[in-house]
């Protein structure tokens, strides 16, 4: 075909570079998105995918490089220009105002701001038409707060379509969906492409990428590490491109199952504003065993983690630690009972970002005689402890006095792990322990968890990453709508069976 007459690509990114301080999040990235094409942008957490899309959409301004939409340059740093050029974005964390209706969320910013009256009926007509055309059923008058996650995502897509988007960017669209919802989403994407849209979706899940894209771009540490036609590649090749070498699963040695260390009997928790409560669950954690919890995020994992961490008390049922029923519910009680906690959110719960490494590592133990006497903190002991973790766990950090905020995610996680594992806990809660870490750090975290298992500790591993769960867990339970499935031993269930259970179907 003659290059002169071919239509311009929907998107053309040329040499996009973005630095945050000393970190180069995007390093001279160039690619084109053809009209009617679906590109998957594959990469690990922290590879720079979201940064790149944020530049495209104008949330960030690139330090170097340019973006063209249908052959026209896009002014940087202006979401409004991106929207006007026909670029729509479905963010990973939905950008919806919970206190407003679906119509209002979609109409927001689409009518001149200084108009005296919002034209809701015109908005409603257009939303109804789009919903029909693309099979995106929504309740237009419902409050967003009352919608399910899947519905919210449909609203996000409608927002883009309402603005006549011709290029749609989806940032980790399946992270919060059940396998069934994911399938529905991919059907929608096919429909969008059939109607002439071009799509980029971001993912770190290989199977989805293989299933739904025409072409795959792989990002690694801010650089484009490979580009493949989906039809001409396979999962192994993509995985290698993603992490830079062949992925070797951790070596899991055989360990004798130990004593029962922690047990939940018929436990339910109170209703909560966000996420799901636990309903009548049974769970037994044995020494020398890693129990993996699979499930779509928001199905009760937070309540389960809260229960172990002492942040939440059951409303019914009993909890046993070794052979004593638990009566006191507080994080301190959990700590004293020998439960180590690696929280899901390092910044919100795991560490106090503006305090130093020494101050952070003693946070769970500062009352012990080791770290304080007569109400005075022994800072020498605290520093020594911090230094010992820094040495043992190979933490990259200038000194025990450095504010923990300045550390990378992996180093922060190592400190948290070091703090949690120091007292040789009998039960370990590891909630998304490898989220957002680079490959090296992930392997490190896994080896430490396996080490604790060999030592005889019981580990509860909650993760959204099925591959991580399958690699590490001796037994897997599936959590769905606040209920736990019966445990199944390693290798007993296939990925698709687990997927079905995550969607709420009983194991076949």
């Amino acid at each position, binding site marked *: 075909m003659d290059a002169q007459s071919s239509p311009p690509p929907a998107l053309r990114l040329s040499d996009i570079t973005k630095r945050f301080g000393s970190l180069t999040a995007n390093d001279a990235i160039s690619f084109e998105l053809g009209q009617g094409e679906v590109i998957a942008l594959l990469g690990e957490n922290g590879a720079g995918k979201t940064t790149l899309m944020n530049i495209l959409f104008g*949330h960030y301004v690139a330090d170097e490089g340019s973006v063209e939409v249908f052959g026209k340059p896009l002014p940087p740093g202006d979401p409004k220009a991106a*929207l006007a050029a026909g670029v729509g974005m479905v963010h990973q964390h939905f*950008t*919806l105002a919970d206190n407003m209706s679906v119509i209002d969320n979609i109409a*927001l910013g689409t009518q001149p*701001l200084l*108009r005296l009256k919002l034209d809701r009926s015109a908005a409603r007509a257009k939303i109804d038409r789009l919903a029909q055309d693309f099979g995106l059923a929504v309740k237009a008058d419902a409050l967003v707060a009352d919608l399910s996650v899947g519905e919210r995502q449909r609203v996000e897509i409608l927002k883009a379509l309402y603005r006549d988007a011709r290029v749609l960017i989806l940032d980790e669209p399946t992270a919060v969906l059940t396998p069934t919802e994911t399938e529905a989403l991919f059907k929608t994407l096919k429909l969008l492409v059939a109607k002439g849209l071009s799509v980029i979706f971001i993912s770190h899940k290989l199977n989805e990428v293989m299933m739904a894209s025409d072409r795959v771009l792989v990002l690694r540490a801010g650089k484009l590490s490979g580009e493949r036609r989906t039809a001409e590649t396979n999962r192994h090749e993509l995985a290698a491109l993603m992490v830079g070498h062949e992925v070797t699963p951790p070596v899991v040695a055989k360990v004798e199952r130990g004593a029962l260390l922690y047990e939940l009997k018929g436990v339910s928790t109170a209703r909560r504003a966000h996420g799901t409560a636990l309903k009548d669950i049974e769970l037994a954690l044995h020494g020398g065993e890693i129990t993996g919890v699979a499930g779509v995020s928001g199905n009760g994992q937070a309540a389960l983690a809260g229960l172990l961490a002492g942040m939440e008390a059951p409303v019914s049922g009993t909890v046993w630690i070794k052979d004593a029923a638990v009566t006191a519910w507080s994080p301190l009680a959990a700590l004293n009972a020998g439960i180590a906690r690696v929280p899901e959110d390092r910044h919100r719960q795991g560490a106090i970002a503006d305090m130093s490494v020494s101050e952070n590592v003693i946070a769970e133990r500062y009352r012990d005689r080791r770290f304080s006497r007569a109400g005075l903190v022994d800072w020498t002991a605290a520093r020594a402890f911090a230094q010992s973790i820094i040495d043992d766990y190979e933490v990259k950090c200038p000194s025990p006095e450095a504010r923990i905020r300045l550390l990378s995610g992996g180093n922060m996680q190592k400190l948290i792990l070091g703090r949690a594992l120091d007292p040789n806990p009998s039960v370990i809660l590891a909630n998304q322990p490898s989220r957002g870490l680079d490959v090296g750090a992930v392997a490190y975290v896994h080896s430490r968890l396996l080490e604790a298992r060999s030592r005889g500790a019981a580990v509860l591993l909650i993760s959204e990453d099925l591959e991580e769960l399958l690699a590490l867990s001796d037994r897997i339970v599936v959590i769905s709508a606040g209920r736990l499935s019966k445990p199944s031993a390693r290798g007993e269930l296939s990925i698709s069976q687990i997927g079905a259970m995550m969607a709420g179907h009983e194991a076949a």
Partner: protein
Amino acid sequence: MMDAVEILFTASFWVAAIRIASPLIFATLGELICERAGVLNLGIEGIMTAGAFAGWFTVYMGGDLWTGVLVAALVGMAFGLLHSFLTVPLGLSQHVVGIGVTLLATSLTYYVYRLALPEVTSPPKIEPFQPWPVPGLSKLPVVGEALFTQTPLTYLAFVLVIVVAWGLYRTPLGLAVRAVGENPGAVEAQGISVTAVRMGAVMAGSALMAIGGAFLTMSAFNSFFFNMINGRGWVCIALVVFGSWRPGKALLGAILFAAFDAYQIRLQQLSGGVVPYQVFLMLPYALSILALIVVARRATYPKALMVPYQKGER
């Protein structure tokens, strides 16, 4: 002597209640707009002081009354600009900046007052807004006198409740304001500047606070004196919470509060000095605290209230 219950059925009592409510309505609406956009404006007390002075001083210098209101609003906006510049793009603590703006607006007002009128011992007076009975309506039984024999500024306060309610719920701009206080990311993703909406809301809200202050010097009284706001601004912050961030409920709260205030003044006279008058004066403040306790459990704050926003951060 009049009975304590009878007071509630006199027109003069309700006339007073509505008059006392008026400045609170302005300032509460102002604070409500700020908080709906996600900014707690503790500058309110000082901005009301500045507005009270600016409006009065304009008239004292020969301006007409409506020019005075306009000047007060502009002064309020200026302080709103200062507040929002520090708290929105710079993301400084809204608590600290708010207190700072109150201290600054108050001291600056007193400084200018002393500068302009170095000699005066008793505060000079102006000719304030006069009651303007609405033809026809003021003759209605019961509510006629209470509602429709007020000054034009009171009517403006009531009209503004409708305007603000309409604006927040029925206009594109209002959607943006409510969304920016709930999830700023939603606003930015739709191509609207979070900074602009928040700063605009704080400036508009501060203008209303200043008019609330001006009501005191230009309609309720006829001169400016020190400490005249006397905690009304803080009361308005309580009223916003009490009104669940809704203009209609906030109006109701302001009228309830003012009725109580008017009532305690009359009870004071009734009690004949047996109970110290200070006890009656304390009641409105105590009532505000009580109101906060009552609604605290079911209060649904705008989710992004007091949370600074950085572009691209979600």
